[in-house]
């Protein structure tokens, strides 16, 4: 059986950045396994700009951003396989993959980096009633059809959900000559970035109807229309608020789910909020030597954050295979992070001071829109951070930074709490 020091599952932005960081940290044998036809993942269908503002201080398109990493992967001669599906992984880090030329292949890894990304929630997850005609697409599928295959899913469009892909597709379909009639969002706030609301809806005069959902889909063969209605605070449609729209297409942008089917095969502990693995400061899961990054870990709003996080996973996987996590570090005490009062989760979930770098960035999302509120961090009962934010929303990821030196001053620290406070 062939063996590699690090096997990375997924050649999207997370997998690529992890591979590069691992290579820079001195790992020789790295293999990236990618199920699609090209490296770069979903970025390849994101032909709009706005990528890389943090990383490269310029506005790139998705393919351009991806290529910055692909180029380096090629330069570094990191091995990768395309059109290759990982069929199975085991606790002992045997990876089984399959492709047209090699068939079913088993390889041994010393470390595995999970970077499989996420998928879109389908209609069923929302229980949207009505017929099941052609013309209902998830926004990402439509994006692929338009941007990569060159086909128009439809001409008269209603979009459900104001996640970023839905917003981007509202603009994209408009630019391609379709008529986007309305974007309905069940929550009282958008799930997307503020900049996308402005640039993709407001700039094109596309209405966003908050606290609205689809209550009926008409059309037996092809979509003929939808009914949207307002919802109350329990998300139940309010009778009498129905509005009909004639359309031939419905795009769904109703959330992303990390693709953790492989992670589950080796009993990686999962976080019910993120649907991604629970990880420590090194982005390592409960299965030793298995790391996770990118949208398989938790759904990100900016790819820049994915790259940054993935680089950390790559670096730590390298440390792991090169034996740089010593026993002493492992024995140093572990602090748990707790997300409460408006904070839905944190990544990482635990911090081992012995193993952490000088700083650890902790990312999280809030569960509601908070105006003029504070992000607070408590070391046990002591408040050590109290940062005012004019606005925080579920669509935008937040972060705080933990400082190693500072943490060393609290030798008995058990718990770090992250919360939102009004004052």
């Amino acid at each position: 059986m062939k063996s590699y020091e690090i096997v990375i599952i997924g050649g999207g932005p997370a997998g690529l950045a992890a591979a590069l960081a691992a290579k820079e940290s001195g790992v020789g044998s790295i293999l990236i396994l990618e199920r699609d036809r090209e490296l770069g993942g979903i970025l390849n269908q994101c032909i709009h700009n706005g990528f890389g503002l943090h990383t490269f201080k310029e506005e790139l398109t998705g393919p351009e951003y991806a290529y910055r990493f692909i180029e380096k992967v090629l330069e570094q001669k990191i091995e990768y396989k395309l059109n290759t599906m990982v069929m199975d992984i085991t606790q002992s880090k045997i990876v089984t993959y399959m492709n047209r030329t090699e068939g079913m292949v088993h390889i041994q890894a010393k470390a595995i980096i999970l970077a499989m990304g996420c998928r879109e929630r389908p209609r069923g997850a929302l229980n949207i009633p009505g017929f099941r005609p052609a013309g209902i697409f998830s926004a990402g599928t439509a994006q692929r059809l338009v941007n990569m295959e060159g086909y128009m899913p439809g001409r008269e469009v209603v979009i459900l959900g104001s996640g970023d892909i839905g917003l981007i597709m509202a603009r994209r379909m408009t630019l391609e000559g379709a008529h986007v009639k309305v974007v309905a969002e069940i929550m009282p706030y958008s799930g997307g970035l503020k900049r996308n609301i402005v640039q993709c809806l407001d700039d094109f005069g596309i209405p966003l109807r908050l606290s609205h959902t689809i209550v009926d889909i008409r059309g037996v063969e092809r979509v003929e229309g939808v009914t949207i209605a307002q919802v109350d605070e329990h998300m139940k449609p309010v009778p009498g608020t129905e509005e009909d729209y004639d359309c031939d297409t419905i795009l769904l942008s109703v959330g992303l789910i990390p693709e953790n089917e492989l992670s589950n095969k080796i009993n990686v502990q999962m976080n019910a909020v993120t649907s991604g693995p629970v990880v420590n400061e090194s982005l390592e899961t409960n299965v030793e030597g298995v790391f996770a990054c990118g949208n398989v870990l938790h759904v990100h709003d900016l790819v820049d954050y994915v790259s940054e996080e993935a680089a950390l996973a790559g670096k730590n996987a390298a440390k792991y295979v090169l034996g740089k996590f010593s026993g002493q570090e492992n024995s140093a005490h572990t602090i748990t992070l707790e997300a409460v009062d408006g904070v839905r989760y944190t990544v990482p979930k635990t911090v081992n001071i012995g193993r952490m770098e000088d700083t650890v960035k902790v990312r999280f999302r809030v569960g509601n829109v908070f105006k003029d509120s504070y992000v607070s961090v408590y070391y046990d009962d002591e408040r050590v951070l109290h940062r005012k934010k004019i606005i925080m929303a579920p669509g935008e990821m937040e972060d705080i930074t933990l400082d190693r030196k500072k943490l060393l001053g609290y030798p008995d620290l058990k718990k770090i709490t992250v919360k939102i406070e009004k004052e």
Partner: protein
Amino acid sequence: MYDVVIIGAGVTGCCIARELSRYQLNACVVEKGDDVASGTSKANSGVIHSGFDAKPGSLMAKLNVEGNALLWKLAEELDFPVKKNGALVVATDEEEVKHLELLLDQARQNGVPGVRILSREEVMNMEPNLTDKTVAALYAPTGGVIDPFNLAIAMGENANVNGVEFRFETEVLQIRKKNGKYELETNHGTIETKCVVNAAGVYADKFHNMVSEEKIHITARKGEYLLFDKTVGDLFTASVFPVPGKMGKGILIAPTVHGNLYVGPTANDVEDKESTNTTQDILQVLTEKAKANHLSKRVIPMNKVITSFAGLRAHQDKHDFIVQEVPDAEYFFDAAGIESPGLTSSPAIGVMMAKMVSEKLKLKEKTGFVSARKGVLKPEKLTDEERNELIKKNPAYGNIICRCEMITEGEIVDAIHRPLGAKSMDSIKRRTRAGMGRCQAGFCTPRTMEILSRELRIDMTEITKKGGGSRLVVGKTKEL
């Protein structure tokens, strides 16, 4: 002119076609959809009923028990997946236990093998996730699960291989008896036949009433379902029924033959025989049922619903199957009112109908009837070595198209080129499960379209979801 024309390529029509194809005859199935099993047969529970529910002495009871026995053999012969997982009717109070006794008596009268009442302890051992309120349960070991489409597909393919013609997207508009034969006026011209078999599901009354003075009436009874991800498919091993009510067997919780879990069906009579839409109110009811489910101890996670759908049962007013030569319309045969347990009964309906028709037409059995059929090859069932051999021979089996169900390009190509091959996205889905997984075809739609376009040599813009006007894309970009 045909000897026999069967109206409807649902599971009933396909079973009749297959059994008739044992004889020397010229037969045709006309179907308004673009595929077999595209009406009622595509949306049901996929339960193989053992036969304890049907009223003793009814045709339903007889054909259910016979059909059940036939199915297991057919599954081997025609290579489609079935699982004998057993059925449980769970009583949660003493009143309901009395009802179990009635069912047991009924089961005995109907000749259902092995049915017995289990004590609380026995049933809890069998299904530890049953609610603590469980008092007892009726257990039918011959209950099973089946892929609802695959029986029709297998029977249809086999009938086709044995010479039965299929005309899809052909809707019968009018039936006339003329000069000792029937003329079927369709949207694609007139078809002449000696004999008609009416297996038109919810429309069986319409065709029957065109030729007979003794009118029948069929109500479309809608059932809505919630289908859950395979990750919760292990809740129960058996198909778990509540104690039945007036409208049917009640809302059950059961695993599918592929390991998903579902909750359903509801039962609501509807006017419109095309209304296969799900409805806000009923989905709400189902959701509440699933959440506060009184049969399961474990909470069914509602975020694991991957799709919801509705099907229509062809409920006949007298609540029994009608399998007959229509008394006042010679050479016109009905297979009408085939509601639950129609799927289970269909092989027996096929046998019964073929017997009646063959006797009427004095048909001779033919030599060279091909009784066996191989289903779409499932690479997942092979060992790694076998799989590698397969990929070496045909690399398309090394290319995963549907990521959720791990369906390869090879399987999709097979589905397209086999008898009664798939021509649309839904027909590929029914034959291979591509697109049926947790992402509901989000990833594989463009890929499957490409394969269909390549293999059928049609433009991407002509690919449909289910034939007719159900095109997936409306044109190329830059064309608007």
